[in-house]
Every structure is written in structure tokens, then in C-alpha cells.
């Protein structure tokens, strides 16, 4: 989990702190509905049932299922989901550190805990039905004296429980189709009172696409529902009326997209066809859509009356003419007249591939992931998406994304249901952040909008096995890279690329709320066989991390770097039981980072006397004599079984201590007495792991 200041850095990298105030919320279920809200928004407690662990099996659904895959970390996933919502700087929302509980889902009406659990009995299983997970939120349907004896406000959420379906195999490492973190992030959004987003590529879209990140649309919800006391943000207002032949269009989707920044947000028109959205300064393309496409009234909590009103006028997805220009503090009127009639375009099957590559799978209606920094084929399949279309029929909205001229074509070799697919090659400039792009297709009087349906991700992180090296020695092993359990390592981008993270280095701010180093920093995470690594700092060219202790006993590991939803291919890296190395003053020198008995840095100008103690710092000592959680500071006395020589002479002493530096993460130290007979001047120091015989590269100490 990210600490508070770092979380904000991460978010800035994700959404550039841009948002709109629109969104669609949940409401009470009476005749005068108001939005649901949490009154504990600044400190929301949630507990994960302690049975939800890696390898959890369940047969409750009638079939034996590994609900949490063996190498998953559900606690880290839930913490990350909470951190995702906590990281919105323009909202006053904070989930407290995740608690553990033995309690299941209960409702007592007062003092209930917000619990996340896998369905544990027939009541839970019936509630979750066939969904991956559900959130049951209990709320006050009227104000007054609440069940705990205190005065409560109508619409206040009493508590929320998240129930995970034991019929599906979840994972946190991509080893199954169902990503626990994205699911929990979505459900926590409901626990906050969020409805579903109208933008296809968002986490809060009603169907799961393993999207872990928040878009400007979810941020809009949070900023609207839980505004901070003073945000200091400059926004303007866009509003107007949507009409068809002069008649107001009720409950239509209206989306705003700034093609220059990718900021996208959506809302619904009111019963009288009006709408109002606050947004940061920019020029916005407006798209109006009926609730007859991939989003239907039911997906947005509309009442029956509202659903009926939304269907009163049949109209096409409509692109507003011109852009709505928003200025700080300004009010812009943008009325939209929609084109009537029902589109003949079917909801297409949507995916992306490399240019002319085979299609593996797709979603109906989207979304599709678009890795930036390359050309990709957008694939559409369905009635209307045929050879009659050309470049002039297709518009794409997003920064740095465009249709390659002459690339709209039918692929006769691939089909769905016997219907040949349409390919559109998109040229996508490298983007340092994830954003949502939209595609609008029109032909004659008919049109189709894939609004927010393209998730444009940063370029795919690129590195090789050789580029994963000990952070102290800059070496791997046997001509390859290497890691050892608990050691500090560096991972470098492949030459000529800078794809590992943000352009500006982001360092961690120390321990998080769980006294662990964060495993996500600046939008970057690194996993080893699915286990997230604690991070020291990240930027586009390098990541410094602690190799998880869980690698002990392995000979190799699969390393994946994920930057804002863009994941590298898994790279196999050898695992050594230990790889001791001293940190050095300069990258190419051998002068070790060591302190003399008086606490001053050992150097040619400040040598230590024979018989005195020096402490040399490094990493990679491997197994130590105490159990330490990955990412946690070491306790005192975590010793390694190492020997040390200085100038070839065995060195130890009464206070000899090879092992982990107390309170530090991954840092090792060798505290050793300089032999009385050691020669003076610059002398070689070497430490050796007695279990493996692996030694540090030569270091240098200065002796007087």
C-alpha cells in the first residue's frame, strides 16, 4: 500500500489530477431519492475475513474451486484497491488500514463491520448469484433516529459487505481470468455510493475487464460526492439541453472528451433534457447516446419511469458539432440536437491486435486495450462494420491517436460467427499515462460510438533478464541477471527504451500504514511469480526494489513490470540463495561504503585503525536467522552465516555481526574488527556466505 504523499504522486502519474464533476450515483429507494453517501468517508474501516488466503479452496458452489490461486496475495490486492481510492487528491475519502477478521457477513443494524469475504453459507451464495462479486450496502431510507440510537441522515450508508463468489478462480498475478484487485476496487466504489460509469474502459463500468486503475470519470464521482474543504481547483461548467426535433431528450448518456488530454467523463441528462458538468479548462467533444447500446437503463440504476422516459425518443449516437470550450470559472452552454432514428449498427465485438495479427479474444461492445507507442489494429465485428466503411466514416478522439490513412479494411481471413471482421489501424503515440480514447463511426444517417472504449496504456515496459542485477554490485550471475531473497536489486530498461515508469523519479515516502514499503509507486509495480516487490524508487529507466523473501528455495522466477496497466512480458530471472555485495562509493570503484568505529565514513583520508571495528554496508545476504516479512524493516539480530577477510586475513571480533541492518529493508551490514596484523593502506575486504560459498566482489577498506 502506498503512503499518503506517495499515493498522490501515483495518482498524478495516472490521471494528471484532471477530472470532471459529473458522474452517476446511487440513490435511496424511496419516492424522493437522494444520493447514497458515507458519513465515515474520512476514515472508512474495512476488514478482510482471515480465511481469504492464497490457495483457498471451496466446494460451496457445488464444484471444487481454488478461489484464490496458490501464488496470489489477496491481502496486498485489497490493500491496493483501497489505496487506489485513497489516492484521489481531489476528494476527502480514506479507507483505514485493512483489518483482519474472523467474522463473516452479518447484519445487526448497529456497529456492524464492513467485511470482505468469500461467500460462506447459502445466504451469501444466494445473494452473490452468478456474479463474480457483489456489494450489499445497507442504508437509511429515511432520516431520523437510527438503529444505533443516534440521529442519522437519509441516504447514509450504515455498512457495506463485499461478497466474493466461490464459484470462480481469482488471482492477483494474472494466473486466472478473474483479477481480484480490479474486482475489489469496483466493489469498493459501490461501497462509496458510486453507480456505474458510462465509459466502457473504466473500472466502474458494469462489466469486468480487469481494469485496476481509476479514470477521470471515477475521480469525478469521488470529487463530487466527497469534496475536500478546499480543493483550489480551477474548473468551469458546461451545460445545456439535449433535444430531438425540439423535444427534450430525457436520461440520455452525455459524454465529454477532451481530445488533447484524454480527460473523459459522463453523466445523464435530466428528465427535462438538461445536463451540467464541471470540468477543467479544455476543449471538449460532446457525444450523446441513447440507453439502447452496451449500456442500458438497468446498468445505471434508472427507475422504471426513468427507463421509460429514456426510451421515449429513438435517436442515434450523436456527435455534437464543434467543441465546448471550458474556461476556469466560466459557464459554457452547449445544446445538442440529436439525430433521430434507430441505428442499424450492431453492438460490435471489439478488440485490438498487432497490425494484421490473429485475433485471440474480444469483448462485445468493448473495451479494448491499446498499447501506445506503436500502430495497432482496432478490430470491430458486427452488422454495419463492413466494406462500405472508409477513413471518412471513422473519427478517433484522444491525444496522439489517429486513424492510419487508408487502413479501414475488411479482413477476409478472420471472422466471428461467420462475419468477417473490420480492421482499423490506429497510430498511437507513446503516452506516459493511461487514458481513455473514443471512436465514433458514422455512415449516412447511422452511427455508433465506442465512448471511452479504448484503454490507451503507456508503452509496454521492456527489460531483459540480464538487466536485473544486484543494486550494490550491478552484477547478475553467469552472464545473466539474478536476484536473491530479501536483497536490494535494480532493474534497468532495455537499451534505447524508457518504458519502466514515469520520466521523473518517484521515491517511496517510507513505510506505509502497514509498516511495509509500498509495492506500487508512481504507477509502477513489479512482481516475482505474482508476488509484488517492495519498491525504493522508480522512473522510466530504472526500478530499485527488494526481491521478495518468498523466492527462497527457487532457482528462477518470472518477473513482470506493470506501468499504469501496461504489463511487460514475463521475464525469467535466475534466483540465487544469496548474492552478497558491498555498496560502493562510486558505481565503478571498489571503495566500500563503510563507517569507522567513530561513525564517520571510512576513506583514504579517514582510515580506521587496526584493532578497531568497521561496519561495511551491502545487500544480498540471503537467508537470515529470523523471519521478516518482505518489505518490512529488519529486527535486531537477524544474522547471516558469513565470514569476512581483510587483506586475506580472517576478521571477526567480539562484536562481529554479519546480517541485516536493523529497521532497514534489504540492507545488510558486516560489523567486523580489523585484524591487529592487517597491513595498512587500501586493503581488500571480502565477505562469504558459508552456506553457498558465494562471496562479495572485492571491496576496499582504508586501514591505518
Amino acid at each position, binding site marked *: 500500500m502506498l503512503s499518503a504523499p506517495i499515493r498522490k504522486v501515483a495518482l498524478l502519474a495516472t490521471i494528471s489530477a484532471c477530472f470532471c464533476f459529473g458522474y452517476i450515483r446511487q440513490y435511496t*429507494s*424511496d419516492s424522493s431519492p437522494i444520493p447514497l453517501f458515507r458519513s465515515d468517508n474520512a476514515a472508512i474501516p474495512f476488514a478482510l475475513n482471515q480465511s481469504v488466503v492464497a490457495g483457498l479452496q471451496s466446494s460451496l458452489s457445488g464444484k471444487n474451486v481454488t478461489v484464490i490461486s496458490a501464488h496470489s496475495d489477496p491481502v496486498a490486492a485489497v490493500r491496493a484497491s483501497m489505496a487506489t481510492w485513497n489516492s484521489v487528491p481531489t476528494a476527502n475519502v480514506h479507507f483505514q488500514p485493512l483489518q483482519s477478521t474472523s467474522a463473516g457477513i452479518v447484519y445487526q443494524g448497529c456497529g456492524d463491520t464492513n467485511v470482505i469475504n468469500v461467500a460462506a453459507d447459502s445466504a451469501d451464495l444466494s445473494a452473490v*448469484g452468478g*456474479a*463474480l462479486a*457483489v456489494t*450489499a450496502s445497507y442504508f437509511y431510507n429515511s432520516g431520523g433516529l437510527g438503529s444505533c440510537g443516534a440521529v442519522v441522515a437519509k441516504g447514509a450508508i450504515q455498512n457495506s459487505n463485499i461478497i466474493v463468489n466461490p464459484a*470462480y478462480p481469482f488471482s492477483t498475478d494474472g494466473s486466472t481470468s478473474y483479477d481480484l484487485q480490479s474486482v475489489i476496487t469496483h466493489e469498493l466504489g459501490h461501497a462509496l455510493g458510486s453507480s*456505474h460509469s458510462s465509459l466502457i474502459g473504466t473500472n466502474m463500468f458494469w462489466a469486468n475487464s480487469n481494469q485496476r486503475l481509476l479514470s477521470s470519470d471515477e475521480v469525478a464521482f469521488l470529487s463530487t460526492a466527497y469534496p475536500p474543504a478546499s480543493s483550489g481547483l480551477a474548473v468551469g461548467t458546461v451545460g445545456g439541453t439535449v433535444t430531438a426535433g425540439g423535444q427534450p431528450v430525457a436520461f440520455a448518456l452525455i459524454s465529454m472528451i477532451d481530445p488533447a488530454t484524454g480527460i473523459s467523463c459522463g453523466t445523464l441528462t435530466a428528465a427535462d433534457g438538461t445536463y451540467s458538468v464541471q470540468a477543467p479548462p479544455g476543449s471538449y467533444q460532446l457525444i450523446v447516446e441513447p440507453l439502447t447500446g452496451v449500456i442500458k437503463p438497468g446498468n445505471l440504476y434508472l427507475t422504471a419511469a426513468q427507463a421509460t422516459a429514456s426510451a421515449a425518443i429513438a435517436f442515434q449516437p450523436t456527435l455534437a458539432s464543434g467543441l465546448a470550450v471550458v474556461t476556469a470559472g466560466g459557464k459554457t452552454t452547449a445544446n445538442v440536437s440529436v439525430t433521430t432514428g434507430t441505428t442499424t449498427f450492431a453492438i460490435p465485438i471489439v478488440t485490438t491486435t498487432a497490425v494484421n495479427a490473429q485475433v485471440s479474444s474480444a*469483448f462485445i461492445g468493448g473495451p479494448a486495450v491499446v498499447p501506445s507507442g506503436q500502430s495497432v489494429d482496432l478490430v470491430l465485428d458486427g452488422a454495419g462494420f463492413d466494406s462500405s466503411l472508409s477513413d471518412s466514416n471513422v473519427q478517433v478522439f484522444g491525444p496522439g491517436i489517429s486513424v492510419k490513412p487508408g487502413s479501414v479494411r475488411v479482413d477476409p481471413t478472420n471472422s466471428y460467427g461467420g462475419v468477417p471482421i473490420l480492421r482499423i489501424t490506429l497510430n498511437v503515440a507513446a503516452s506516459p499515462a493511461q487514458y481513455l480514447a473514443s471512436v465514433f463511426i458514422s455512415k449516412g444517417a447511422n452511427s455508433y460510438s465506442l465512448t471511452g472504449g479504448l484503454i490507451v496504456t503507456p508503452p509496454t515496459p521492456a527489460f531483459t533478464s540480464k538487466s536485473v542485477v544486484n543494486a550494490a554490485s550491478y552484477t547478475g550471475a553467469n552472464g545473466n541477471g539474478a536476484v536473491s531473497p530479501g536483497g536490494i536489486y535494480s532493474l534497468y530498461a532495455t537499451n534505447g527504451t524508457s518504458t519502466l515508469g514515469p520520466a521523473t523519479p518517484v521515491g517511496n515516502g517510507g513505510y506505509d500504514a502497514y509498516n511495509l514499503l509500498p509495492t506500487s509507486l508512481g504507477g509502477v509495480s513489479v512482481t516475482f511469480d505474482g508476488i509484488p516487490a517492495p519498491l525504493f524508487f522508480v522512473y522510466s529507466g530504472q526500478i530499485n526494489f527488494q526481491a521478495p523473501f518468498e523466492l527462497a528455495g527457487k532457482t528462477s522466477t518470472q518477473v513482470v513490470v506493470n506501468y499504469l496497466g501496461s504489463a511487460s512480458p514475463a521475464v525469467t530471472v535466475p534466483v540465487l540463495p544469496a548474492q552478497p555485495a558491498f555498496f560502493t562509493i562510486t558505481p565503478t570503484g571498489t571503495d566500500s561504503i563503510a563507517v569507522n568505529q567513530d561513525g564517520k565514513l571510512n576513506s583514504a583520508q579517514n582510515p580506521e585503525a587496526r584493532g578497531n571495528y568497521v561496519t561495511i554496508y551491502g545487500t544480498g545476504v540471503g537467508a537470515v536467522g529470523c523471519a521478516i516479512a518482505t518489505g518490512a524493516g529488519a529486527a535486531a539480530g537477524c544474522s547471516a552465516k558469513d565470514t569476512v577477510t581483510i587483506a586475506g586475513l580472517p576478521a571477526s571480533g567480539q562484536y562481529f555481526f554479519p546480517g541485516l541492518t536493523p529497521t532497514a529493508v534489504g540492507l545488510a551490514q558486516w560489523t567486523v574488527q580489523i585484524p591487529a596484523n592487517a597491513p595498512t593502506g587500501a586493503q581488500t575486504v571480502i565477505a562469504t556466505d558459508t552456506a553457498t560459498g558465494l562471496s562479495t566482489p572485492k571491496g576496499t577498506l582504508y586501514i591505518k
Partner: protein
Amino acid sequence: MIPVRGAFATLVPGLTFEQLTDQSETVVSGTVGRSWSDWDSAHKYIWTHTEIAITGTHKGAAAKTVVVSEPGGAVGDTGMRLDGAVSYVPGEQVVIFLQRMPNGYLRTTGWGQGKYVVDSSGRVHNAGGRIELVQPDAPGAADASTPLRTLEGIPADQLRARVEVRARGRQGVR
């Protein structure tokens, strides 16, 4: 006052027509009637129960009425919202696929995927959107499953007939 909620299919994997039919204990046509909300027997969840006057049974035992139960609703001053539950509006003409829940309730199969509203022209429309992960055609292979999207807008009688054929086929297998 019984809340009217939307039909959602949040985070629900897509079903094919064959899966939808096979997973359903009963498939009926009918008219939506009265509804009421109450706690379940474990007093953990509020459910809204809706009575359907049956006009045709396409799978399962014939009856005059059936009660469909969906989680969510309000009892007294306490409301419970469970994202994705399906709503039924009095007077609606529907073809519904119903699955028996472990607590004994009959619930719409696959969330919104199992409810079709019959319009005035006798065609069916799914009330909630859905999303499915789909695979492209394998070269030379015939796809045996039927995506639900292909059912959108077909005559209700055609949907009923397909269900009955599928149900009979499964019985034959047994």
C-alpha cells in the same frame, strides 16, 4: 414502498443461450404482478419477491404463478442495495429464465441475462446490457454455442421454441 431497481449484470461473466437454458430450473412466459420485500431467514439480506402470472412454461414444471426473488429492497427504514439485482415492473410481459438459489429462492439466471421483456410487437429485449468474452471462429469449425446478443429483438415465440428444443434435448441426454 417497494423500490424499483435497475437490472444490472455487474461483474457477471457472460452466458451463452445454451448455458442460460441449462442452468435454469424453469423458463416461463408471463406477466409481472405484485412484489414485496423481506429479510431472508438468516436476517442477512433483504430480498424483493415478485409474483409472475404464468402464461407459458417452456422448461420445468407447469404452474399458474411463480415468485421471482432478487436481492435488495427496503424493510422499514432500512434499505439494502445489491448491485446487479434485476427489477420487475408490474404489468411487464416477460420471458424469464429462473435458477434455484441455495436458500430456496428462484432468481433470474445470470442476473440481467435471464430476463427478456416482450414488446408490443411480440419481440424480446434483454433488460440489462451484457458483455461476453468471445473467441473468434476456429478455421473450419462450427460454433455450437449461441451468443445471447443474437437473441436481441427476435420474436418471443422463437425464443420460447428454442428453449423448449434445448430443454427437450437435455432431457434426452439424461
